């Protein structure tokens, strides 16, 4: 705990040092930006003073601050994608600290038939290096395999790859899924999947904001080599009681939200609804249909507005998958896995210049598979408990300096108990304290230049590792070029966890940590980009990156049995690198909107026991990816959405030789051996067209309805998933391709919003 106290003391000390630098005679403007209809705070909304170069973005709580303003009259303009711009005239006196909360009304383009043609303007935070945000409306609109899904929507963005149609895992800029930190309301989520990896567990109805840091992420985040997905639940409607009901082919969802005397609340529930289908299939004597399968999610949040400067909230999430099935008569599978999170948040505004946020988080991941085959049991109890506290302070010194400092300390427990045939086969319990302290300073020496420097110190008790992570970002906005930002960034990142997972079946995921002899993995990221705002709400992003991955530690895939091994001997150590370029062209407004993304990517890794310790392409490495997503408002009530993706082939191993051992002393007629260059070949290209139509209107006068009809894989593309080679009895081999979803998948959903 000594480290925690040190971290807290340093935070306070830092603030004490900077607070006296306040300029007393200059005015300031600060407040929340909210959705006028719901009262939800809007994260990363733009707030600018027209006619000046002054502007900022709301933070993760929807709060903005403009300081060091000269006395006088200003036009404050607030913008947010999907909302109508608001202009407010204010006159500030010398030394005045004006609180100005701003409310924005949604566009409602489709219903009203209004085409908003706002000035093309670059949002502040959303246009930072490596950052992309996806609106929940976009997630709901995109054609989807059975159920709208946050991660599958993210997979359409350049730089993010999917392993297959069956996986919602995020492979970002050459990183495996464990290299992405996934947070829900500031709480780490350790295995975000439903249906064994097919879906992510985030109910789009319950979510307010999804923000993705693809790389070069700032010092306030840490613990992963690659990227961050930061998701926030809705606060709940502060103005009126509202609800939403959705019925889909796989699952149904419900949301209710509303105000109460001191704030707002929200409760969202989602549950799979395929139970009757499974029962019908079982009754029709279809083989291998599970006796039981369902998943559910519950999201809830309560806000307590204690005053203008204090807000408290409690957020909960609980989700799980439950499977009971029997295969081949004697193979019984009983599986429960899922996540639970709880977070308590206190937002306190010390002054217009000093904003703070304190959070307590608690995360639980459980996976309890039980197999019984011929009365031979295999069972596992896998638990992760992660309890933490974090504090973040934002201090706006003046229009040139802003500072963020914070800490994050917690206790991580991983428990893994395996039994085989009634006897314990593995008992592991890892408990470790971890802590981090960060400083992140943004300096704008001129209107054209911005320098962002950061330093994060990470301490991980298991192995006693203290690591420093410097961050640096440089931005140049040449006035002569208008809405253009040129950016470069660098960061070092450490990771103290590794994930044992399978692309086939994510329900058995196990996280392991560093320890004595198992040093943390680390990597450097170099990122450069240009953000260009064109006319008519069109933005163009171009980014390039190079990143290294050192001291990667993954479970030795050749280890048949871990019993009796020293912890450090369970791992295979390796390294890797990735580089690439991405282009993202989006049109955010008008009847025709959408985006086009292209990425070029190269990823290589190497491990001692694979490919003779030479670099190889991991399976998820694809060189070229294109995605085109368009929405077109056919009329006031109909919208068409089309998504087409193309990716060059993934890496795979095609054996080119074989031999047999014929004198096996253990009774095999022969041992058949394949000889291959590891992952040296490429599967055929992947491409898929999805489209859908959305109809909206009034439902018997008491609710708005939304009906969606969609088609996935419209032209029945048989995209390859993987290739395997088997030996035939006559000594020949047979190499076969297993396809991804080979047919058109229809999808229907109906939603009521009241």
């Amino acid at each position, binding site marked *: 705990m000594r480290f925690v106290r040190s971290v807290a003391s340093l935070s306070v000390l830092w603030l004490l040092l900077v607070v006296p630098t306040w300029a007393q005679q200059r005015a300031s403007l600060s407040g929340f930006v909210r959705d006028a209809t719901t009262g939800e705070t809007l994260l990363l909304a733009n707030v600018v003073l027209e006619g000046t170069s002054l502007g900022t973005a709301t933070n993760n709580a929807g709060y903005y601050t403009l300081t060091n303003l000269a006395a006088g009259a200003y036009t404050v303009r607030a913008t947010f994608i999907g909302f109508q711009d608001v202009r407010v005239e204010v006159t500030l006196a010398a030394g005045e600290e004006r609180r100005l909360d701003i409310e924005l009304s949604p566009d409602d383009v489709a219903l009203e038939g209004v085409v908003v043609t706002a000035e093309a303007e670059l949002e502040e935070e959303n246009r930072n290096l490596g950052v992309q945000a996806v609106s929940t409306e976009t997630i709901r609109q995109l054609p989807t395999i059975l159920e709208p899904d946050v991660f599958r929507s993210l997979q359409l963005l350049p730089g993010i790859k999917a*392993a297959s149609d069956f996986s919602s895992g995020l492979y970002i800029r050459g990183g495996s899924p464990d290299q992405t930190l996934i947070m829900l309301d500031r709480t780490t989520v350790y295995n975000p999947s439903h249906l064994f990896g097919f879906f992510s567990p985030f109910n789009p109805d319950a979510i307010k904001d999804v923000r993705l840091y693809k790389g070069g992420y700032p010092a306030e985040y840490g613990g992963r080599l690659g990227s961050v997905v930061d998701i926030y639940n809705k606060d709940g409607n502060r103005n009126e009681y509202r609800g939403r009901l959705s019925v889909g082919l796989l699952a149904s969802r419900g949301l209710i939200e509303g105000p109460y005397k001191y704030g707002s609340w929200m409760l969202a529930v989602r549950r799979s609804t395929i139970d009757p289908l499974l029962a019908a299939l079982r009754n029709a004597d279809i*083989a*291998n249909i599970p006796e039981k399968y369902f998943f559910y999610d519950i999201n809830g949040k309560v806000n307590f507005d204690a005053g203008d400067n204090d807000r408290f909230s409690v957020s909960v999430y609980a989700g799980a998958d439950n499977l009971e099935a029997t295969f081949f*008569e*004697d193979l019984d599978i009983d599986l429960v896995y899922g996540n639970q999170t709880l977070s308590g948040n206190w937002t306190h505004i010390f002054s217009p210049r000093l904003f703070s946020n304190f959070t307590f988080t608690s995360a639980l991941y459980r996976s309890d*598979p039980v*197999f019984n085959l*011929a009365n031979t049991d*295999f069972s596992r109890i896998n638990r992760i408990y992660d309890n933490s506290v974090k504090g973040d302070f934002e201090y706006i010194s003046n229009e040139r300096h802003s500072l963020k400092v914070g800490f994050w300390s917690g206790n991580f427990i991983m428990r893994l108990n395996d039994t*085989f*045939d009634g*006897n314990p086969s593995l008992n592991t319990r890892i408990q470790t304290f971890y802590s981090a302290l960060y400083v992140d300073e943004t300096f704008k020496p001129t209107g054209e230049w911005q320098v962002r420097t950061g330093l994060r110190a990470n301490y991980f008790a298991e192995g006693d590792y203290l690591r420093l992570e410097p961050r640096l970002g440089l931005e140049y906005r040449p006035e002569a070029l208008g809405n253009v930002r040129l950016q470069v960034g660098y960061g070092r990142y450490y990771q103290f966890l590794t994930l*044992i997972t*399978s692309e086939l079946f994510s329900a058995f995921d196990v996280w392991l940590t560093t320890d004595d002899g198992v040093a943390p993995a680390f990597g450097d990221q170099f990122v450069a980009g240009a953000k260009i705002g064109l006319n008519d709400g069109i933005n163009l992003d171009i980014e390039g990156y190079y990143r290294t991955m050192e001291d990667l530690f993954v*479970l030795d*895939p*050749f280890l*048949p*049995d871990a*019993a*009796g*091994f020293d912890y450090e001997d369970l791992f295979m150590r390796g390294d890797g690198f990735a580089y690439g370029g991405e282009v993202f062209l989006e049109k955010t407004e008008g009847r025709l909107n959408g985006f086009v993304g292209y990425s070029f990517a190269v990823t290589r890794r190497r491990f001692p026991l*694979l*490919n003779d310790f030479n670099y190889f392409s991991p*399976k998820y490495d694809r060189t070229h990816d294109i995605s085109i997503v368009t929405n077109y408002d056919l009329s006031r009530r109909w919208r068409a959405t089309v998504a087409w993706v193309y990716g060059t082939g*993934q890496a795979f*191993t*095609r054996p*080119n*030789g*074989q*031999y*047999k*051992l*014929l*004198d096996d*002393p*253990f*009774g*095999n*007629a022969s*041992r058949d*051996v*394949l*000889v*291959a*260059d*590891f*992952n040296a070949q490429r599967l055929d290209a992947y491409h898929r067209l999805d489209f859908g139509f959305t109809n909206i209107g009034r439902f018997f006068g008491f609710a708005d309805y939304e009906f969606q009809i969609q088609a996935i894989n419209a032209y029945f593309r048989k995209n390859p*998933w993987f290739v395997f080679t088997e*030996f035939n*009895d006559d*000594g020949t*081999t047979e*190499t*076969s*391709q*297993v*396809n991804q979803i*080979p047919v058109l998948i229809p999808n229907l959903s109906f939603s009521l919003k009241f």
Partner: protein
Amino acid sequence: MTRRPETWDVNPAAMTRLALLLALTLGVGACDISDPDGFEREYIVEAYLEAMQPIGQVRLSQSVPIDGVFDFDALSVGGAEVRMLLEAPDGSIERTLDFAPSPSERGIYRALDASAVALPRRTYRLEVNIPDGSTLSASTIVPDTFSVVRVNNPSAVYASDDQVSLDLTPSFYPGRQSYYLFTVESLQPTQDNLVPFIFAFIDDNGDGVLDADDDFEPDDLLDIRIGNSPPLNEANYTVNADGSLNVPLPWLAVAFYGPTTTAASALDDNLYDFIRSEAVQQGGSTLSPGEVPNILTRIEGGKGVFGSFARVFQEGIVVREE
């Protein structure tokens, strides 16, 4: 096709393999796309030493392109010089065993001294000189011998709580715990004796009859007559008061009712590496589907295995449940 449903793996790799099996079983389509590009022919050596048993033969052959057929007669390598060196504890050569080509089988080489046995806890080095100038070499340390102290429940009802178990004296291997491989051989591998799980696994169409509709031929039973575990570590097992290891036989390992022979083999590093990586090559690991690593061989100049082991046998009976 080869069927090997009888391993009793206990780690995540086993579950991955199971998931792969389920994915394929549940109707994911497949089509043939073979391509032999990039093949390079290599020499293959195969030789095993069993502790306190006569030193066996050495087999030499070559690999074949993936679209070919491995016909040993056609691929055998004759005219090679083969010898095995027994190292003294100080690393010097204590004895040289020369091998001669079999007069009747090309590619087979046998020790000239037929009485020589493989000594436990000793290092042997195999050296092969091929007429084209290529050389192959490999070393093995022979695991120590061990024995069966007692057999518990030698005649047990299938899937009952009272399992067959062996009490074994522990083997010894320098520098590490022992790795064991267990082999269960049915002595009456008939269709009537198939245990329910294996029957259902073969019965693809679920009609309760094994026939051509299930891609089944009677000779397939011979393929599953013998089942092997993956390598299992000594640390898995309870140590009895007398120092012996109690090794229960999982029912998962049993494919047939009736008399069986169970063998426990302690493996050297070479066999351990070969067998564990063979399992990964067949799809059981944390690697993504379609990622096929090469077998871990410890042969300089070629491929194959020069392995050693120590082994004990025990017979028992699997009784049909009521």
